[in-house]
């Protein structure tokens, strides 16, 4: 099989970070080539360079021996490179057919509705990806939307397919269908590059794997002849410790009791009768694929979303009808999923952000007046304790790095001495140092007898920190398992809706 795509010593920097450092990659015809790496390893940047969304600072990219010099995706598309992005590039208000032909519409002026619809139907049949060309993309499931994305690529006669984290939002059945499609394409000689941070998937689907770490390509191996441990080591660069050493702890009385909560949103029920408890000195991890109700559940607990039915108790008190502010007062702290959107006011100074929850109370305010000196002292103290850099309390939150912004939020929430801390994706997008810092803080809280509800899409994080793990699927709590004695496989199966008891 000959090489069709060759990336040689490509480097790409952004202000403050070298995203790709002398990266090498070669892809052969008719192979499925995986790019494996942790979040932030540089995988997305690499394919965006191939696709023309970015220009390399140095190095070369060749397609069938022709040097590529794209300044926009349009040229990449014309050269036959097709990309399906992790976050779909679809227009929900338009139909499937309209989305597919957009940018390469047949005809000159008039939009040929009937012809386009028919053409899309034929295309879908050709690739065994049935779909209704007249459906509005916004009404489709995620799996079907992905089909539209793939069909888009083939409408433009792609000769090379790039898939960026394609299984992130799919159900296991949809993943199976995707794999079939990929294998069919491979047998037609079309090379596929797919990016993932999921070891098991990559092992299952690919022919060769290129591992990336911290912006560099570490190694390229034949899938058949590598072990998961070798891959994990290459990804992380050290012996992977599967469990963070947690001192054993006897949990105390229940702090949070959730009974039969049902949460609706729009027309569906996102949470269908969930019950669990979290006790003092315990980290309860909630695992699940994105979109299965975990975030709606914590919004219900914090009071941001109403419950259709069910009860929530904090230290024995029924808080189901409390407002957000009252629950905060009662002792719930919350680190939200989207720190920039929900956790901070980016154009406020750090001082103002540190007191975001309690700005109206003494000592920060008396009689409606803000107490400047008290607030400044508080901000300085917290910045020291949580190592926020730069140590400028009057800097705008906007000017801090993601890790430091998260530290501000953490500092604020933790220092309020809450009974229950809810942390949603607390280490998303952070570098290793920041991640370790935050994990240590969470363990400190645990040792101090606080209750922690950890919701994360990173299974490793859940497994290493949690005393007990709840797995959520389609709005239901599938099982609650003890942290130290469960395997990834068990959790993975539960996450996809398989009831362990049935497995025998």
């Amino acid at each position, binding site marked *: 099989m000959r090489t069709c795509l060759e990336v040689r010593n490509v480097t790409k920097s*952004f*202000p*403050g970070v070298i*995203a790709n450092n002398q990266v090498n990659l070669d892809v052969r015809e008719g192979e499925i080539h995986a790019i494996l*790496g942790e*979040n*932030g*390893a*540089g*995988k*997305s*940047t690499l394919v965006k360079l191939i696709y023309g969304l970015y220009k390399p600072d140095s190095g070369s990219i060749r397609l069938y021996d022709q040097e590529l010099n794209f300044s926009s995706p349009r040229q990449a598309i014309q050269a036959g490179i097709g990309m399906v992005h*992790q*976050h779909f590039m679809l227009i929900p208000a338009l139909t499937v057919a309209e989305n597919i032909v957009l940018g390469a519409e047949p005809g000159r002026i008039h939009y040929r509705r009937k012809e386009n619809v028919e053409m899309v139907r034929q295309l879908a049949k050709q690739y065994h990806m049935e779909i209704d060309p007249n459906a509005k993309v916004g009404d489709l499931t995620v799996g079907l939307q992905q089909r539209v994305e793939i069909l888009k690529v083939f409408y433009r006669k792609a000769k090379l397919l790039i898939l*960026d*984290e394609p299984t992130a939002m799919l159900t296991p059945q949809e993943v199976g269908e995707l794999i079939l499609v990929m294998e069919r394409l491979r047998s037609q000689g079309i090379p596929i590059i797919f*990016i993932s*941070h999921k070891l098991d998937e990559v092992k299952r689907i690919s022919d060769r794997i290129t591992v990336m770490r911290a912006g560099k390509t570490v190694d390229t191996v034949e899938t058949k002849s590598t072990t998961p441990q070798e891959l994990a080591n290459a990804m992380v660069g050290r012996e992977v410790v599967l469990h963070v050493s947690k001192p054993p702890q006897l949990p105390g009385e229940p702090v949070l009791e959730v009974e039969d909560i049902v949460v609706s949103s729009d027309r569906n029920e996102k949470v269908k009768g969930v019950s669990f408890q979290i006790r003092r000195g315990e980290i309860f991890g909630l695992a699940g694929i994105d979109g299965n109700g975990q975030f709606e559940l914590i919004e219900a607990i914090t009071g*941001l979303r109403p419950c259709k039915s069910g009860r929530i108790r904090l230290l024995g008190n029924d808080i189901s009808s409390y*407002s*957000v*502010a009252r629950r*905060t007062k009662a002792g719930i702290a*919350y680190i*939200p999923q989207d720190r920039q*959107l*929900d*956790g*901070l*006011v*980016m*154009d*406020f100074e750090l001082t*103002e952000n540190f007191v*975001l*929850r309690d*700005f*109206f109370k003494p000592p920060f*305010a008396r009689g*409606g*007046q*803000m107490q*400047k000196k008290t607030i400044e002292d508080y901000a300085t103290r917290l910045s020291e304790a949580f190592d926020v850099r730069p140590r400028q309390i009057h800097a705008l939150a906007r*000017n801090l790095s993601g890790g430091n912004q998260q530290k501000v939020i953490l500092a604020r929430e933790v220092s309020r001495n809450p009974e229950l801390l809810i942390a949603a994706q607390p280490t998303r*997008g952070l570098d290793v140092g920041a991640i370790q810092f935050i994990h240590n803080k969470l363990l400190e809280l645990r040792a101090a007898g606080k209750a922690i509800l950890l919701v994360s899409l990173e299974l490793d994080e859940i497994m290493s920190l949690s005393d007990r793990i709840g797995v959520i699927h389609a709005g239901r709590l599938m099982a609650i398992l003890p942290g130290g004695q469960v395997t990834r496989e068990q959790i993975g199966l539960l996450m996809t809706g398989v009831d362990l008891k049935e497995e025998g």
Partner: protein
Amino acid sequence: MQKTIEGLVTPFVAIVIALLIGAVVMLVTGNNPVTAYGALFSGAFGSTVNMSNTLANAIPLILSGLGVAIGFKAGLFNIGAEGQYWIGSMAAVWIGYSVQGLPPILHISLCIIVGMLAAGLWAGIIPGLAKAFVGAHEVITTMMMSYIAIFLSHYMLENGPMMQAGFTPQSPVILPSATLGKIVERTQLSWGLAIALVACVVVYWLLYKTTLGYRLRAVGLNARAASYAGINVPFHLVLALFISGMLAGLAGAVQMLGVQHRLYDSFSSGYGFTAIVVALLANNNPFGVILASIFFASLSTGGQSMQLVSGVPAHLTDVISGIIIFLVATKDIVQMVQKRWRKRQPLAPVKEA
């Protein structure tokens, strides 16, 4: 301190550029910019009388500018300041001529309070509630209320309840007990200036030293995070429009009590839109509003003189105002780009896998 100086550069540069463009326009239309600007300047500042009138003109701009600025701080674009000004004027004049037997200090206070409340409600109830509960854009609602207010004032004065018997559509004169005295005799400069300056201090204190101001600013900068922090966003949106309207109403009240002493049937004061430019130029800073207002007031008083002396139509000052908005809007971008480049942040978050 450095921030303040940095903050002053942009408006200063914008003004200079706008004046230069104005000069070019004058040259193109066959006028002499030097005589024109000279007349403008002396008309605005050339004598005690001129200076006083300029300051007098600045008073309604300061107050309505403050109103627009506080709206912006809460993330709201109140372009209905004109209408709120009229409502405030109407209410103040009505109390001014119809309530008798009060000592001046009470009478004036009453006029002002009623004027402010009426204008505040004008902005807060319909535009405010509509924005808070239905998401109706305040640009359109406040503008529509503005036109309704203007027609309302016409109605009041032309054969309506506030009309004074006679042929000219105007209201009765307010009683002496409701009149604000003059600081400089035979000019338009009244003690309303003191009210305007006090208002600036109050607004500054409100925005930056109180919890209410914190809430308003939080809502304006990030309504979601504010909501998560337990701040009642809809309530504060209504409140912000209410306060904004109150200030514009205060502008009207002060103008009536200090300068006009009765309501005339004119179409527009022009303060409403200029207030927007004032707020933008001042970057919504209460003290910057004072400086910006004096600048635009000088354009206005000087403009008359410029038209008389050099023949350049006074409307040139409107052209200059428009150019300033363009410049201020784009300067923001340039500044933002500069700041980001200095802090080495990418322009948009990079979505990493």
